[in-house]
């Protein structure tokens, strides 16, 4: 069995968990990068491209931006919290905020679909649903990860919980950054 280590490696300068999450995030950047590249192609090639402000409801997007930033703040604070109580105290609200994001997103989708704004309506809406849908899946995965860390906080040693929390905070920072980019590209331009 490969031993689970929590020390910072002398050669890489980081812990194995940190190295692993950075490699994972690099692959995620490539995934979203390919989609943003497709967005750039479709938008530039389209004879007409609607403004997100005219088609989408900006209030939902702004509310979700606040929710995600608050979530990121909670997870970031969990990095320095003493486990397990401190970790739980910060990751529970973060998971709840993630759920709130999904609820707001569902309400937004429902309003759009009711108004006949579905992916088949236009290329803009197709890219919008693909990008925001994939991002919402990442938020859902982050909630699961939050709950997993909270559940394991009492069972595993504090060092392991701190390593997991550090990886989780990097993941949520990535999800926040992707959302900000999407806010600018889809809603504000």
């Amino acid at each position, binding site marked *: *069995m490969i*031993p*689970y*280590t*929590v*020390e*910072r490696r*002398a*050669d*890489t*300068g*980081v*812990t194995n*968990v*940190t190295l692993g999450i*950075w490699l994972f995030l*690099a692959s995620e*950047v*490539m995934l979203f*990068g*390919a989609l*943003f*590249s*497709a967005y*750039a*192609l*479709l*938008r*530039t*090639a*389209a*004879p007409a491209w609607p403004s997100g402000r005219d088609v989408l409801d900006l209030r939902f997007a702004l509310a979700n931006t606040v929710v995600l930033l608050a979530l990121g703040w909670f997870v970031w604070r969990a*990095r*320095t919290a*003493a*486990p397990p109580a401190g970790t739980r105290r910060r990751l529970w609200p973060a998971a709840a905020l993630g759920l709130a994001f999904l609820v707001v997103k569902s309400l937004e989708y429902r309003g759009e679909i009711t108004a006949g704004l579905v992916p088949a309506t236009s290329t803009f809406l197709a890219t919008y649903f693909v990008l925001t849908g994939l991002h919402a899946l990442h938020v859902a995965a982050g909630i699961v990860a939050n709950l997993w860390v909270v559940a394991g906080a009492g069972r*595993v*040693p*504090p*060092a*392991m919980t*701190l*390593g997991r929390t*550090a990886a989780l905070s990097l993941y949520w920072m990535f999800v926040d950054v992707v959302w900000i980019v999407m806010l600018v590209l889809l809603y504000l331009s």
Partner: protein
Amino acid sequence: MTRLTNLTSLTRATSPARCASVHPVGERPPARRRRTAVRIAALAVALPAFVPAAAFACPICFQAEENAVTDGVQVAVVVLVAITAAVLAGCATFLVRFLRRSAALDEVPPDTNRAPRTGALDHVAGAAPGPVPR
């Protein structure tokens, strides 16, 4: 006199005999090897500039009519190349850092008096470091 001593030590340090003892004949010093590798890489990157006709032969839009689609393809290619380059630059930076740290670790003997850094535990007092059974 001091200057003369320094010069003498410099001459001794860079004498062929000493260099040969550090780097055997036929083997280049690591810094020189690195410089050569960087020069070859730079030349490979700059090569398309010397053969523009071949470099412009993009299979997607070569000789294609200039329209919105070709513009879109170009923008998409630039976006994807920029993102890929950023990710690869991050990987390369890490690898360079990794090599430097490895080289430094090879040179410095291990300090047994220093407590090991625990990474995840650096900011938390009282948390026990050490390997954790899975």
